């Protein structure tokens, strides 16, 4: 099913998407999308939505099981508190991606903005994965409590820019960040440390990269030919010693 989003207010567009999903449509293609907010918000059916154009903020917020493919760039807040499903962005994306995300995958082909992967968390069998192919802004993996973030630094619109910004992993207390080609340790937050990847990590990276490459028609060997490092929190309880009990 195709919907022409040209000039459609976001509320009307999203209502049409919801109605289409309710009536059992499995694949929806949106043409001429131009900044409409909240596409795929709260969708809980395994449908596939292809977006031709640039969707607005809060794409796939609270999404639970749908797949969204963006053929161009995307904006801020993708996958806000997403539970399950997948978002694939063929261009670059904005700030605060995967906020509080606890399941599913977000694959960004190019650069990402600030505070990406903030407060991602995993529990039980849920393990969110966010992969950015280009460079990232400051606060990458802030407050991260679980799941996997991968930063490749390969496919950037601004290749002269640094691979990642300052305060990398600040407040991180769970999960893992893999970075291709190493990190700038002077920009790491005090809560995290850099470690060599082991066989288990390599297996995970290979699996995640093969899915990523399939989405974008890339050759995994080009990505895997460089070493990865992993960034882990030093403590599950970064602020455990901050407090003084009241006097007895």
């Amino acid at each position, binding site marked *: 099913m195709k919907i022409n989003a040209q000039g459609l207010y976001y509320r009307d567009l999203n209502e049409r998407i919801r109605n289409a999903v309710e009536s059992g449509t499995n694949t929806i293609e949106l043409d001429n999308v131009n900044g409409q907010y909240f596409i795929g918000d*709260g969708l809980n059916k395994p449908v596939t939505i292809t977006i031709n154009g640039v969707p607005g903020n809060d794409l796939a917020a609270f999404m639970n099981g749908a797949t969204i493919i963006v053929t161009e760039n995307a904006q801020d807040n993708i996958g806000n508190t997403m539970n399950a499903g997948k978002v694939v962005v063929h261009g670059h994306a904005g700030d605060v991606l995967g906020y509080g995300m606890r399941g599913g995958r977000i694959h960004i082909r190019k650069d990402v903005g600030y505070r990406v992967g903030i*407060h991602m968390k995993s529990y039980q069998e849920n393990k969110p994965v966010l992969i950015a192919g280009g460079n990232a802004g400051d606060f990458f993996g802030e407050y991260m409590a679980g799941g996997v973030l991968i930063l490749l630094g390969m496919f950037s619109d601004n290749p002269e820019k640094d691979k990642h910004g300052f305060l990398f992993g600040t407040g991180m207390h769970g999960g893992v960040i893999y970075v291709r080609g190493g990190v700038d340790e002077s920009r790491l937050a005090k809560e995290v440390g850099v470690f060599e990847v082991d066989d288990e990590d390599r297996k995970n990276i290979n699996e995640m990269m093969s899915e990523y490459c399939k989405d974008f028609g890339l050759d995994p060997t080009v990505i895997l030919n460089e070493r990865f490092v992993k960034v882990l929190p030093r403590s599950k309880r970064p602020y455990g010693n901050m*407090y003084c009990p009241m*006097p007895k």
Partner: protein
Amino acid sequence: MLYKSVNESFNEFIVERKDTTCIRCKVCVRQCAYDVHRYIESEDCLTEDHTLCIGCRRCSALCPTGAISIHLNQEAFKKNESWSTAHIRNVYAQADSGGILLAAMGNPAKYPIYWDHLLLDASQVTNPSIDPLREPMELRTYLGKKPDNIEVVYDKTTGKPSLKTKLTPQLKLEYPFIFSAMSYGALNLNCHRAMAAAAEELGTIYNTGEGGLHKDLYRYGKNVIVQVASGRFGVSEQYLNAGVGIEIKIGQGAKPGIGGHLPGEKVDDQISETRMIPFGSDAISPAPHHDIYSIEDLRQLIYALKEATNYTKPVSVKIAAVHHIAAIASGVARAGADIITIDGFRGGTGAAPQVIRDNVGIPMELALAAVDSRLRDEGIRNQVSIVVGGGVRSSGDAIKAIALGADAINMGTSTLLAMGCTLCQRCYTGKCPWGITTNNPYLAKRVNPELAAEKLVNLVHAWGHEMKEILGGMGLNALESLRGNRYKLRAVGLSEKDMYLLGVMPAGE
């Protein structure tokens, strides 16, 4: 008691035990969560470590022969109006540990309480009073956006009127009280069961707080408002659709501008599952929502929630009472909130830095009056309902809040008191001897959900009845007639400026 440090000897409480009355049943030993009491087998006697006592009174309440009493330690530092004992002991503790002082429950410091300076009106002779025992009296409250105007159409054949204007979703409360947001994790499941069951029985609402909704409580959906905070704990598409409303928590009266840390040792299986976070890891709520840096961003989250629930739930935004509360509330209303919840600086907390709890924020009375006035002045008061919390101690306070402009009242501390809390203010230790703010199964079973629910129902019934009596006395038969009716309030002992801010006249005028 051996080898105690000097600072430990400046203990706050003294446990007094009458040995002649003590029957050596050891209830005190079993009941104390802080290991104050100890049985010495060789001597067949009980002894106590005063330095560990927090003054919760669990032992004295449960001692079957009344052998125990707890007193403030009369041994004091030299009297000093500037340096209180608490100040001195806090400095010692911080000099020892280098840490931030933790505190719990609401601000106990000596700030003015405006409720105690406001008096209600009653009818005499003209506009006679109404007897609520014999005449209908309405407390029912609807929370949500109200339209600017309404259009009524009449059926052509029957002539019956019907409302043509489409109303946005409303929360229907039979009493103007909500069991306030206290998260699962801070409180245990027994307390949440009690609040949910009481809300159902009363036809009112229980707020989940930011710790998610336990799977057993989804069945209370019609009486639940689910909260979304910066940590997004337990927030999913099912959760958002589980209740009748959604609340975005921006701030909390006890700790404006501060996030929260639920310590990892409190995160057990059930809490991990409900909060949807890893077992045993700290549940960190960042101070801000990192996707909200402006009113426009707040609007984005409000509408993301509305989109996720297909515009079927009103969205509340909870903010702490701070200096520019009126301007902030105006922004929140314009961002599309259906309800604004204002939490005053006496609002409780499970844990907050003491310096924040005792020094940040403003009284709810002033905040409420300022917000109500501002929204009226801007002509947008109908666009939001106002819920207030933080310092309502009785139906008297509650009805004064209604007269100042509140639509409904959040009951936090009073809810805990009804369930057995004695305000010892040590919630953050996770060892609540009354079984409320603890997830330790041995302690948590001290709250029986059915009995606690009954107490909550009783309290709200009692307050409701008292409110009806007060309304009747004023010659009003519906709470709606008192809402924002400050003419029914008079001030005693307040400055001109205070009265101006509260919008009330002095008594006698």
